[in-house]
């Protein structure tokens, strides 16, 4: 059996990413990471600045693929093919299709400023999935209602608060019906009073059964919603466990030190 198959177990590994990544000058930004996220679970990634959280999420989203290793999604290679005894990332042309299984929400929202909230949500389903416009519009309106923005469909991003923009971004990602949702510090660009509305939308999404991988230092949210917390440092996964572990102190000194700083 290949390495791939042995690493794919039926319920433990809905999303599995493992491997390394080096940037230009030999800086090892992901150093033999190995992370699996069970179906329908919520994993929160924490760790100091520069520890590789964004890089890991961008690897899973196939925006900046791994050098070695691969991503498995729902039992299949995601954006990679087998090559010899390892894996190789697919050429960009094929990655375009492959990316569809994963949705991502960014720190800076990255809404399209020239399109209304509704148009932001509709763009990709209409242009890349080529689904009928009327059907997509109905679904997009429902998604915006779901994140509490049913009355904001015709506003441009500049007319929305940060919290509202981020909720549009969540609706936009959901419109592609992803199997996994990634969040890269979704609330860290927000004024404090808007954080809860975004976390609220994420909590609702988690309760609906979405598989989620979230880089965030919102430990209250992690405690309430997450199934696992993963601590990264220097491109490595240093510790992982249930959220309670991270609060009750049964963690190593590096994690302790980090938690003392952010809590």
């Amino acid at each position: 059996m290949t390495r791939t198959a042995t690493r794919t177990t039926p319920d433990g590994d809905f999303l599995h990413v493992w491997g390394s990544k080096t940037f230009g000058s030999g800086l090892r930004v992901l150093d033999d990471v190995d992370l699996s996220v069970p179906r329908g679970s919520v994993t929160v990634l924490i760790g100091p600045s520069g520890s590789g959280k964004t890089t890991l999420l961008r690897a899973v989203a196939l925006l900046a693929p791994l050098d070695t290793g691969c991503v498995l999604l729902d039992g299949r290679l995601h954006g990679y093919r087998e090559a010899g005894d390892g894996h190789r990332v697919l050429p960009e042309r094929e990655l375009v299709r492959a990316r569809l299984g994963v949705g991502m929400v960014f720190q800076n929202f990255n809404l399209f400023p020239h399109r209304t909230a509704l148009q932001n949500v509709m763009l990709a389903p209409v242009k890349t999935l080529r689904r009928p416009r009327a059907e997509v519009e109905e679904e997009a309106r429902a998604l915006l209602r779901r994140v509490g923005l049913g009355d904001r469909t015709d506003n441009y991003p500049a007319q929305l608060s940060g919290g509202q923009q981020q909720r549009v971004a969540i609706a936009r990602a959901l419109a592609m019906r992803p199997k996994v949702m990634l969040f890269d510090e979704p609330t860290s660009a927000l004024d404090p009073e808007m954080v809860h509305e975004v976390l609220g939308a994420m909590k609702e999404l988690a309760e609906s059964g979405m598989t989620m991988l979230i880089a965030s230092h919102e430990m209250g949210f992690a405690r309430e919603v997450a199934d696992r917390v993963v601590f990264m440092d220097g491109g490595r996964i240093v510790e992982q466990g249930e959220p309670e572990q991270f609060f009750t102190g049964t963690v190593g000194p590096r994690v302790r030190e980090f938690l003392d700083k952010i809590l």
Partner: protein
Amino acid sequence: MNPHPGFLGSLTSGSLWAAAWTTIWLAVVAQLLGLVIGLVMAPLRRSRLAPLRWVSAAYVWFFRGSPELLQILAWYSVLPLVGVDLPVIAVGILGLGVNEGARMTEIVRGALSSVDSGQTDAARVLGLGPWATARWVVLPQAARLIIGPLGNQMNYMFKTTSLVAFIGIVELLRETQQAAQFTNAPLAVYLATATVYLAITSVWGALQRFVEQRVAAGKAAVGPGRVLARRRLSGLIEIPGAHL
């Protein structure tokens, strides 16, 4: 020909207005050619293939770095030598447009690179390919940044067309030279021509202001000035908590 046409006589001469028309359409066509070249060459500069980047860089380097008149004369004399026989007006358009393309390439390039990379990240994660990303995400945002400079380039182009007088195209300058040769009062002829140029650029300027105001009006609601617009709007928008 009347040796003393005077200012008004010159200004109402049919051949002057025929030449003015030549200047106008020549400038518009050459500017469009420049825009098209810019829209092709600027993305090449960001291609993943190094030779394509070199082609674009070399093009800009050469055509921006040598005198435009020299380029026009060169097209005029070299094209027939390599067996390409174009009407002289086409040579003029080519000379002006290819030169303008180098400047437009730089303008388009600047506009493209000022679109945040987060925009392309978001588009790619949503499954948009390179063309769809350019068409629906990057170009609409870059277009707003291109419109202003494009308007200024058009203004320059109305005057730069005078260079094709040197290859015998009868546009405003050439027509004026010919008229001035047969008069004892060339100043009146020159003043009439200057008036026509001013009329053209003034009408263009009014058009430009109109378009820019419309773009700016859109930008207040849409554009990258997000923080400013947000500040202005923050007093107006109530923030409903998450209805979840």
